[in-house]
């Protein structure tokens, strides 16, 4: 597995050890730098990906698409339960030859093939392979919660997709559990970023800020597997606008209910949009007590907006913006490991409170 960049140096060994892998990394870096001093190793972020070997090709494809957001050192722990021997490959790659007077960044990828017998000592395998003093992002796209618990000791941030779990309740619970131990970068949350930005912008002009207090209804339509993303968007509005979340109930393919705002209820409806082919949201509609409404929906070339004023006059326009696609969302997830979004955990807290009866009993704690 590599990042898709041009490979400049490769090393591999069967029946190897972490010390040998680390020594090979150092040697390859020295060799590449000696060949041309303008090759310099990127030193931004370690990323540890624990993947099932049978799906490692798919993960490699996803990581190829992240382009410049490739972690400076990617350590892939490729898991095959019955494997007895530790094998490893090291690749050092740059995006191209350095141009005169310019630098070419090197990215390092280490793939370690391991089996169940290595899991007890996993920390001692991964630890020597990450660059000291760089933040480390942990990603385990195929589950393996026990491995994540073990590797959290090395990591400051965890990448997950709360829509990957069997139910939205489990997805949000998993994110909640991890957010107590590390900074959580949730791809489901990142899929809501353009929507959050646009909703915030729609109410930002001074004349419209007062209307935030009069929102009376929110409808979010989402990919059938992306209920968690819709929940997070509703949770974000709830937490930012000081609404009190109430449990939602199932209504066919939708979750419906309300949040208590100061002086009025806000009707909430989260509804599956089977026509949506990609994970995330299809559209968001906000209504105010005065009869105004704003719909933001996916469209070619950006978000399609439709507004209706108190007199019932409708207006439609497009807000330009390119879709990031799933690889763009993953790249953004890697980049976000270096930032801190203070609004995620409050949104997650509110989202869990709304699901507490819809998906099973779940105590709601507060954490900010």
């Amino acid at each position, binding site marked *: 597995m590599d990042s898709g960049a041009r490979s400049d140096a490769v090393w591999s060994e069967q029946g190897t050890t972490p010390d040998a892998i680390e020594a090979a990394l150092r040697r390859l870096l020295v060799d590449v730098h000696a060949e041309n001093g303008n090759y310099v190793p990127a030193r931004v972020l370690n990323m540890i990906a624990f993947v099932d070997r049978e799906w490692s090709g798919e993960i490699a494809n996803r990581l190829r698409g992240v382009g410049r957001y490739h972690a400076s050192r990617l350590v892939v722990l490729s898991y095959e339960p019955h494997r007895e021997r530790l094998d490893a490959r090291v690749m050092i790659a740059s995006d191209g030859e350095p141009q005169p007077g310019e630098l070419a960044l090197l990215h390092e990828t280490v793939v370690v093939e391991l089996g169940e017998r290595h899991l007890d000592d996993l920390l001692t395998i991964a630890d020597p392979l990450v660059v000291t003093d760089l933040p480390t992002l942990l990603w385990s796209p195929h589950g393996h919660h026990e491995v994540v618990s073990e590797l959290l000791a090395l990591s400051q941030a965890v990448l997950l997709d709360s829509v990957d779990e069997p139910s939205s309740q489990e997805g949000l619970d998993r994110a909640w559990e991890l957010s107590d131990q590390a900074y959580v970068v949730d791809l489901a949350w990142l899929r809501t970023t353009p929507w959050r930005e646009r909703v915030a*912008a729609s109410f930002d002009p001074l004349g419209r800020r007062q209307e935030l207090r009069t929102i009376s209804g929110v409808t979010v339509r989402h990919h059938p597997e992306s209920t968690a993303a819709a929940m997070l968007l509703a949770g974000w509005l709830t937490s930012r*606008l000081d609404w009190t979340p109430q449990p939602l109930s199932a209504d066919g393919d939708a979750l419906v209910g309300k949040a208590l705002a100061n002086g009025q209820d806000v009707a909430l409806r989260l509804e599956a949009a089977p026509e949506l082919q990609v994970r995330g949201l299809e559209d968001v509609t906000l209504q105010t007590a005065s009869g105004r409404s704003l719909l933001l929906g996916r469209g070619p070339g950006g978000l399609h907006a439709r507004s209706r004023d108190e007199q019932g006059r409708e207006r439609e326009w497009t807000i*330009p913006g390119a879709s990031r696609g799933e690889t763009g969302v993953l790249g953004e997830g890697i980049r976000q490991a270096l930032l801190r979004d203070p609004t995620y955990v409050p949104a997650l807290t509110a989202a869990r409170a709304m699901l507490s009866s819809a998906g099973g009993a779940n105590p709601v704690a507060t954490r900010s």
Partner: protein
Amino acid sequence: VAVSAGRPTGEPEPENPLVAGLERLPVAPTTLVIFGATGDLARRKLLPALYNLAHEGALPERFHLVGVSRKEKEDEDYRGECEQAIRRFSRRTPDEDVLNSLLDNVRYVPGTFDEDSVYSELGSVLDEFEEEAGEPLNRAFYLSTAPSFFPVIVGQLGRSQLAQHERGEVRLIIEKPFGTTLEEARELNRAVLGIFDENQVFRIDHYLGKETVQNMMAFRFANGMFEPLWNRNYIDSVQITAAEDLGIGTRADYYDSAGALRDLIQNHMLQLLCHVAMEPPVSFTAEAVRNEKVKVLQAIPEPTAAEIPDMALRAQYAAGHAGGDDVPGYLEEEGVPEGSTTETYAALRLEVDNWRWAGVPFYLRTGKRLARKITEIAVTLKPVPHLAFSQDGSLGVQPNQLVLTLQPNEGVSLSLGAKIPGTRMLIRPVNMEFQYGTAFLSQSPEAYERLITDAMRGDATLFTRNDEVEAQWRICDPIVKAWSPTDAQTPAPPVAGYAAGSQGPKEAEELLRDGDRWRAI
């Protein structure tokens, strides 16, 4: 009471709790009007920047673009020109749907900038957009024209009542050069501020939009290790270089009337000096930052005619070699008037007379057709007071030098004395280097993307204030005058020469204090 967007200024704005945690802050619905819409700057920089903002979803919720230019053409023709410019100059390949979404909101108003009818038609177009949106839209007028049109356009915007908008903000964005002398700058300020309030005016110095320049404030004020040393007690000299390996290309018309001093030193390089020398601002608001920069400029004494030959040097490149080829001298370049004395190289030695910097020389130099392209700030520290080490058999202990490179490879390098491996205690300088490119995943946005967004948001931090411009001219104006012919009988003083592709004129050494030397370009 000044009224802005229909609200008395000073009244607290209600907060928008939804913006917390967002990396990209909202921009209010805006119509951007570009005067000089078919010019080089619009095609190469402004339109690609607008496309990239559109691509990233960073334009306002409602955004319209109106191009104003002399040439008669239809909206559709102008959209075609915008499309071509974006395809050719955008830093990313355009997404067809996004491009079409952007172009759908483009209009064109033809006419000369002094015609009343242009402004009445423009007013109609702006009203039409607001009617369509059902709400007021902010207006941003971007003057991307020859400077001679600035007062004309500003005056017409005032007369046609387009400079004020009862229910929205109106902003004026002005490209450099902001005057070519102190008097011109003052006149232009008077003309602009007769119509607009200073808080409506955004004077572009695109250097300030570069990540590298913004990083200088982070470097100084976010790292405790440098600030204690950042004064006359520890710093021996500061050297700021903006060197280009290219000649003037096809810009003879502009360049020959400007020269290196006006083109780079009066604006960009003095801004860099301000970033090096300013006191820590109390906050990073526009006013706090600009107040500190103005104080630095005010602390630089205005050069007298007698001082100028000792503290300023100009030169012109002669034929030489660049990139392995023979290249012509400045006077042989296409479009340069015969016998021109315009400088393609300028170097200054300035003093910042305040408590922090008294006695520390600030050397500034810029030039075309030098050995290579580099922009850097080199801060040389004072030597250590006592040397116990032998100086024999090695380069010995050199003063530490901190170099902030702005381009091509943004980074910081610190030279340190280190022991040469071996049995003797011999010292030589080694470099500890940090390259920004190795430490961040994100790509820096183009300066114009940042600046257009900030202007539409009303954030003036990265723009030059009127007193800042005048303070910059106060320093450069006497030099401009000293280098100009006073009358037909008194020609301009001679211009030094340097070979294309070289380190610059040897006469530049004479500006340096004893013991100082220019860094190799």
